[in-house]
């Protein structure tokens, strides 16, 4: 394994911070990842040498800004192996899913059906519930297996000719399980349903080939993929974008405005009303470019090696149990666990006192917690810059919690 984790770590200034005498063991990447110098520099260059509004200015700063913004679109498109004109910049992953729920959703009829799963993040549940209130569509829910995987055996019987969309997490933010996209797409085709993937937890782990996956929509967040906050991406097939009405109204998304009637710009501008998040988009472009500098075969092997170390260590702690699959097959480096008799928040708080940052609670997945009758879990989410010391500090902290809080 030729992965040079020290070289990666050096690119992330926050990781060399000492807080209260302790190094930072950042294992909360699923909530927000850290950001490398390459991203910070790209944003700073924009802010200090080319800051201006995009698209409409003819002066040099505006030309620089427009070029940087459109180059960011190309970087994101390259990262996803799709056409730049199919990339819509949004305020985040949640905003991207809502865009689909409002715009594509407005094309649906009462009685049309949308399928989600029991392990979805609230961001892939609530927008469809709001759509249901607005327009009388129906929601169907694929259950999860005891291992915390979406139970695709249960999918066929939910499919009907009225099923218009299947929207599922590409990777679970609680269990790290990877969806069998091919199986979903194959099933969706039998009824002509579109497939949307919530890629928030997959995008931070290397380039994708969306065009080859046969899906229709993909959403992810910049801040979880080493980019800035305030930026997300919706990818959709161009024929879908063409057919979709606007969502937000304002500058740049119009053709011609009169009070009697207004016409729309072609995609992606139709969906980017107002001044876009220019700096954040430039940062995300730099993040996508940065991700492509890594060898993801070895980066993924490195990440999953840490997952194994973590799972091995937890097994040796009395009262600790994994929530989700015990294997590293078809999964990404997100691991939830429980410590018998200790509330997840107390585990996380104890870990903080060891300098270890993890997340505890429902992870915006209350339906999943309800299904397993859990208050929450403690979640470890790993990025390429994590190393053995992070995992070992975590294990020490969990041992301490097990000893003192029960």
């Amino acid at each position, binding site marked *: 394994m030729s992965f040079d984790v020290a070289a990666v770590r050096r690119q992330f200034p926050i990781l060399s911070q000492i807080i209260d005498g302790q190094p930072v063991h950042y294992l909360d990447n699923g909530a927000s990842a850290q950001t490398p110098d390459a991203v910070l520099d790209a944003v700073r260059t924009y802010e200090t040498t080319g800051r201006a509004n995009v698209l409409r200015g003819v002066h040099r700063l505006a030309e620089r800004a427009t070029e940087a913004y459109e180059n960011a679109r190309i970087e994101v498109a390259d990262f996803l192996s799709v056409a730049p004109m199919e990339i819509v910049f949004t305020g985040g992953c949640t905003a991207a899913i809502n865009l689909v729920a409002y715009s594509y959703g407005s094309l649906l009829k009462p009685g049309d059906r949308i399928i989600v799963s029991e392990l979805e993040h609230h961001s892939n549940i609530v927008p469809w519930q709001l759509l249901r209130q607005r327009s009388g569509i129906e929601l169907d829910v694929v259950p999860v297996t005891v291992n915390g995987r979406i139970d695709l055996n249960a999918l066929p019987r939910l499919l009907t000719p009225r099923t218009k969309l299947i929207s599922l997490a590409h990777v679970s933010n609680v269990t790290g399980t990877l969806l069998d996209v091919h199986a979903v797409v194959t099933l969706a085709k039998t009824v002509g349903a579109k497939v949307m993937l919530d890629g928030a937890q997959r995008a931070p782990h290397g380039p994708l080939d969306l065009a080859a996956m046969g899906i229709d929509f993909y959403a992810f967040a910049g801040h979880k993929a080493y980019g800035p906050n305030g930026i997300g991406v919706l990818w959709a097939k161009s024929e879908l974008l063409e057919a979709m009405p606007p969502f937000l109204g304002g500058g740049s998304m119009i053709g011609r405005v009169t009070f009697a009637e207004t016409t729309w710009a072609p995609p992606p501008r139709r969906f980017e009303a107002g001044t876009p998040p220019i700096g954040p988009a430039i940062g995300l472009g730099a993040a996508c470019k940065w991700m492509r500098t890594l060898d993801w075969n070895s980066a993924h092997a490195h990440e999953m090696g840490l997952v194994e170390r973590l799972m091995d260590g937890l097994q040796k702690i009395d009262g600790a149990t994994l929530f989700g699959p015990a294997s590293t097959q078809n999964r990404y480096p997100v691991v939830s666990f429980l410590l018998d008799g200790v509330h997840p928040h107390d585990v996380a708080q104890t870990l903080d006192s060891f300098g270890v940052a993890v997340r505890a609670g*429902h992870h915006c997945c209350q339906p999943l917690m309800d299904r397993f009758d859990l*208050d929450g879990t403690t979640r470890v989410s790993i990025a390429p810059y994590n190393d053995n010391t992070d995992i070992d500090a975590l294990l020490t902290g969990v041992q301490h919690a097990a000893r003192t809080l029960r």
Partner: protein
Amino acid sequence: MNDQLYQDRIVSLAKAKTGAGKLASPTKSARRDNPLCGDRVIIDVKLDDGGKISEIGHQVRGCLLCQASASALASVAVGRNAAGIEKVRLDAERAIGREEGEAGEPFSAFAPVKAHKSRHECVLLPFEALKDALS
């Protein structure tokens, strides 16, 4: 390790589980959730004719701080009315630094929570539930 939060007194309060459990026939009950962290507290009270608490029971589905707080609250609640409980709450708020002044017992145990803003609600949730039950 910089473990200042889970000091012995807090852990002991939580483990004591004073007042933990349902009441058979409560005069009033109330439930409070903290949607951010998922903590949930149900408080049952029996009131005498003067509106004073004669019996109290709590079911806490939450963290150690919330359990310790419910325990501490139950240990001083009997014999107090709504106004009396407000005074006790003041002690809890003093302990975590939301109010000026010295916190009375047993709430001084919560002083280590002061530095952890994100956990203040854990301490206050049982008070919120009891307030609802008394109102």
